[in-house]
């Protein structure tokens, strides 16, 4: 029970702080649900982020992935509701008052600066995802570089993740990972 309550609280906070959209909220997720709680290993977090990009829907659909590891199905449901609840309520309220918030100058300034900061923070997430690879073998980043170029040119994350799973599984089976 205590764990479900903590899941709810942390994911409510993640939703409320996700300025700039779900994609730029990954550093907050990593901070609040991985680094502070150790709910996931860095490798599990990386796998979750990969699946979040490859599945349809928002990137913050990462929430049920983490919630399931913490509290099974109940954990997954709680974290899903929690992460989207505040954003959904805000969107409904904004539709109701048709942008009174948006026309508030201070709020616009807050939103654009907070979103820029959130994107900068992705550099930290990138570093924490890349670090285990560098420790294992710096050459692995070459693979990341190839994926980067493909993603930059618009190849869908679905194909990229599927390809990575395939190539990884085959080379793991043939040469091992150690």
């Amino acid at each position: 029970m205590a764990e479900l309550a903590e899941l709810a609280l942390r994911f409510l906070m993640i939703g409320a702080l996700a300025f700039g959209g779900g994609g730029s909220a990954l550093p907050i997720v990593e901070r609040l649900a991985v680094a502070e709680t150790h709910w996931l290993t860095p490798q599990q977090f990386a796998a979750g982020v990969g699946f979040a990009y490859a599945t349809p829907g928002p990137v913050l659909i990462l929430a049920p992935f983490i919630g399931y590891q913490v509290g099974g199905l109940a954990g997954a449901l709680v974290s899903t509701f929690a992460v989207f609840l505040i954003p959904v309520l805000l969107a409904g309220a904004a539709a109701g008052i048709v942008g009174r918030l948006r026309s508030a100058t201070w709020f616009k300034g807050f939103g654009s600066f907070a979103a820029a900061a959130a994107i900068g923070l992705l550099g930290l997430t990138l570093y924490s995802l890349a670090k285990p690879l560098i420790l294992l073998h710096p050459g692995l980043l070459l693979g990341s570089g190839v994926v980067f170029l493909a993603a930059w040119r618009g190849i869908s994350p679905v194909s990229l993740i599927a390809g990575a799973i395939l190539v990884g599984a085959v080379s793991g089976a043939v040469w091992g990972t150690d």
Partner: protein
Amino acid sequence: MQTPIAVSLGRLSLVLLRLGALAFGGMGSTLALLRSELGARRGWITDQDVAEALAITQTLPGSTGVQVVAYLGWKLAGWPGALIAPFSFVVVPAAMMIAASAALVAIPDVPATRGALLGIQIAVVGILAANMLKMARSTAKGRILSTVLIGGLIIGALGSAVVAVLSMGMLGAMGAMRKQRGLNDG
């Protein structure tokens, strides 16, 4: 204010359930999907509704795609629509993520699995780097916002991500208010 158009909640929920399963490829494709399926095909909304929803929800915290759906849900069926539409939209993706999470626990720890996980790790770094650059180019335009972006990174590295987002946000709010006051005086 526009009066909500009556669309039955059951129908709304079913349609969004289906769209959630198709919304591969991030925000851009989600918006295209909403425009064609709710707009062109069913005539429930107009392109302008989508543009308005996007403009407004982008300034709010949260997954923008889900919030556009909530905003349109409100327009179609009031508060029940605003709640039912987005949560229907995420049902299929959430089920897929739960399955992936369960698989992560259940699959045997053999070299092929370890290789596959390593492959995902390698790919994620590349995908995230590309996304970060794309977002920086579209959202953090200009010298001021680029500085804020780097400032956020530094505060996050030294302190915490939460402090970085909130402190930069407050700086932006103060800057915007000061600028407005300047305009009003002058």
